[in-house]
């Protein structure tokens, strides 16, 4: 039965997406909406059935993709606790977001394109998660990137949105290249691209090779999961419709990098250096994201930076070798971040597409349902004790602490500071948006349904901790479930230690909450006044994401454009011609060299052709001498 479930799980969204892409415009709107939701929920049902039928890790080969020459790539899927947990989560969150989208996109004409891309995205994401061979994973990896590119630029009539799409594409492309190189190298080393086989063969290779591979995979993950230094695209990616942000840029796609590293941890784990690099990347990114979130004024950008920061935590967990903790946080984060984004979507819809948090306020009364769910989401994000976010974040910090050593202890401290900042900015958001007065909202029938969608997410976020309670509370379901995963053999903590660490973290979260209350709850009017003034240099430094965009523009983009321009115009056509003429006159001044470019001439073509001939023959003659 399992193969049937898995096939259907992939087939539903694929068929849906293709149908809408080809014939979406001819179908009535309601049908498209119903079908789009139905395919994803069908997918979720299959995932749930697969979970029910699950007995142990299993490779399911569906078909041979190609098996010619000595390269055979089957279409095979791998079901283990990790992928199972991911598929169930993806099915559920994406299903809710599809329903939400139906109402959010009520006024948009382009519903067919939207749902086609959304469905194709679900398909690609599931392929990524389930693929047993790395090429299949890569296919999904490219697929989610492509859908994301098109969805960020969905409202293309605004050129800024198209630019944001392009930026995301280029930044993630760097990661993709690293992944491609890593795959090629892996294949060269092991002669196979099956994930299970590769994972089992890591010990055959010297540690330095594993380190290099680990770094390549890390770069790939940096691109997809928006980690420092490839994180610049995610805040801009908020240009897309809000449900897209919730689904792709918060809950699912951006966790693909974490998933990749967790998936290959048995291989990468052989190298301490690679693990440390992952942990450092995660820790630094967590801190970076949190500080940037402090100073943002745009509601969605705050959430975007918080996503960067939270994924940093997951990477930190993977770097500490704690796949369970990382996955735990990944799942809980998916729930509460989707919740926050969807809540933000309700707010934005109610505020006539106003996104500046300083222009909001008083929504506590006019949108009570949104307020309470958003509060739950913020509490989870902040790690207020006993919420899901508290337990998941804490299990990562615990793992980092237990890993020991100076490096990991420093990272633990960084993680704690980040937790404090996180609590502070989450409640800054809550106070600014929901507290105070002036709550005029624009109500529509869709808004009610959109708010209802938040409830299951809020429940899941709030009680997500039950998935994996700490050992002193009886141990968790997830730990037992993941026990079969290799490379998850961390020293277990004593109960006292665990309680101690959690107390510290909980206390810090409460301190953050309190500070936020003092500054933005009580001192709200004062802050509002401050916001009118010119921001200080520290604030604008943080608000601009530490000026990374400008740095990249200066260091990478301009030289790249200059190089391309140079090679295209100057070398190819101008230098050859100009230097030929310059040679003759004897004074090939630089100005003349570049200034004079007469092109399209056969003579120039002939000369370069003959020069090529002279070079090739000269080389051969040199060999023969």
């Amino acid at each position, binding site marked *: 039965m399992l193969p049937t479930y898995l096939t259907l799980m992939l087939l539903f969204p694929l068929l849906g997406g293709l149908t809408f892409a080809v014939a979406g415009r001819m179908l009535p709107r309601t049908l498209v909406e119903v079908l789009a939701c139905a395919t994803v929920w069908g997918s979720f049902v299959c995932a749930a059935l697969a979970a029910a039928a699950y007995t142990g890790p299993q490779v399911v080969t569906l078909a041979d993709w190609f098996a010619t020459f000595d390269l055979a790539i089957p279409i095979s899927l791998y079901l283990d606790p990790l992928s199972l947990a991911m598929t169930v989560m993806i099915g559920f969150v994406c299903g809710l977001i599809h329903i939400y989208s139906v109402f959010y996109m009520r006024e948009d004409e382009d519903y067919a394109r939207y749902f086609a891309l959304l469905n194709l995205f679900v398909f690609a994401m599931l392929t990524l998660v389930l693929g047993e061979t790395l090429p299949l994973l890569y296919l999904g990896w490219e697929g989610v990137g492509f859908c994301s590119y098109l969805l960020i630029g969905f409202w293309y009539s605004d050129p800024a949105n198209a630019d944001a799409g392009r930026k995301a594409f280029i930044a993630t492309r760097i990661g993709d290249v690293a992944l491609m190189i890593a795959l090629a190298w892996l294949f060269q080393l092991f002669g196979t691209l099956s994930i299970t086989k590769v994972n089992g063969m890591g010990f055959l290779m010297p540690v330095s090779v594993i380190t290099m591979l680990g770094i390549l995979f890390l770069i790939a993950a940096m691109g997809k999961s928006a980690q420092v230094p490839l994180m610049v695209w995610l805040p801009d990616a908020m240009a897309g419709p809000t449900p897209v942000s919730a689904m792709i840029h918060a809950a699912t796609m951006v966790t693909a990098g974490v998933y990749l590293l967790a998936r290959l941890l048995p291989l990468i784990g052989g190298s301490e250096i690679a693990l440390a690099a992952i942990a450092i990347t995660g820790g630094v990114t967590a801190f970076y994201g949190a500080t940037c979130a402090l100073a943002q004024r745009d509601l969605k950008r705050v959430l975007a930076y918080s996503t960067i920061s939270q994924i940093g935590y997951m990477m930190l967990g993977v770097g500490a070798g704690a796949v369970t903790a990382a996955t735990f946080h990944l799942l809980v984060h998916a729930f509460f971040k989707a919740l926050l984004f969807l809540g933000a979507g309700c707010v934005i819809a109610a505020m006539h597409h106003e996104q500046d948090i300083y222009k909001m306020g008083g929504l506590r009364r006019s949108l009570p349902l949104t307020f309470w769910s958003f509060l739950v989401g913020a509490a989870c994000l902040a790690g207020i004790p006993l919420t899901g976010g508290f337990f998941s974040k804490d299990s990562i910090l615990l793992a980092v602490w237990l890993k020991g050593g100076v490096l990991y202890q420093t990272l633990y401290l960084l993680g704690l500071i980040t937790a404090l900042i996180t609590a502070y900015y989450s409640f800054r958001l809550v106070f600014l948006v929901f507290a105070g007065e002036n709550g005029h909202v624009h109500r529509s029938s869709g808004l009610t349904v959109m708010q209802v969608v938040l409830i299951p997410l809020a429940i899941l976020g709030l009680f997500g901790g039950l998935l994996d309670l700490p050992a002193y509370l009886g141990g968790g379901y997830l730990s037992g479930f993941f026990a079969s995963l290799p490379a998850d053999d961390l020293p277990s903590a004593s109960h006292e230690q665990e309680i101690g660490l959690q107390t510290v973290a909980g206390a810090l979260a409460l301190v953050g909450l309190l500070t936020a209350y003092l500054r933005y709850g009580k001192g709200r009017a004062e802050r509002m006044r401050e916001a009118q003034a010119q921001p200080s240099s520290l604030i604008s430094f943080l608000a601009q994401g530490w000026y990374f965009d400008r740095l990249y523009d200066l260091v990478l983009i301009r030289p790249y454009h200059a190089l391309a321009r140079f090679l295209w115009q100057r070398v190819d056509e101008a230098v050859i011609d100009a230097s*030929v003429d310059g*040679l*003759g006159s004897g004074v090939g001044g630089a100005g003349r060299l570049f200034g004079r470019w007469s092109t399209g001439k056969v003579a120039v073509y002939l000369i370069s052709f*003959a020069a090529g001939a*002279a070079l090739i*023959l*000269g080389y*051969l*003659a040199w060999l*023969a001498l």
Partner: protein
Amino acid sequence: MEATLFYILAAVLLIGILLAITARQAVRSIVYLVTSFFALALMFYLLGAPLIAAFEVIIYAGAIMVLFLFVIMMLELESPEKLAKPNFKNWLPALLLAGAVVGALVVLLASRVQAVPPGFTEIPVRQFAFALFKQYGVAVEVVSMQLLFALVGALYLGRRR
């Protein structure tokens, strides 16, 4: 004796070509070229290819060069002042590149002692004809198609609209 003749002919050939490519007028260059092609035809004869020698004279010196002359006359390109001559600036890359190519080729073709040469042998016309129609019959067909389409293309481009 034959060897001496070969070298003399080679000298005539190369000098003729040199004069042809540096001639100030296209017509003169054609005349020089015809001379060299006569020398080339004699070299072909010495190398045991009488048939090719005959074709060289008939087709190259006779037909192709006349075609060139015809076009030159038709386009009235003769007045020398109307046409730009290659100056030193044009010759320099030509000299450099041709020199490099010929240098490399000479190194490659003369640096090693060849395998034992069986000596030059004359190939009778009968053998030539057998090879042409027994071994390479299809080549004749391909070339004939090509000639046909040269005609088609030339007529198409020359069509008055």
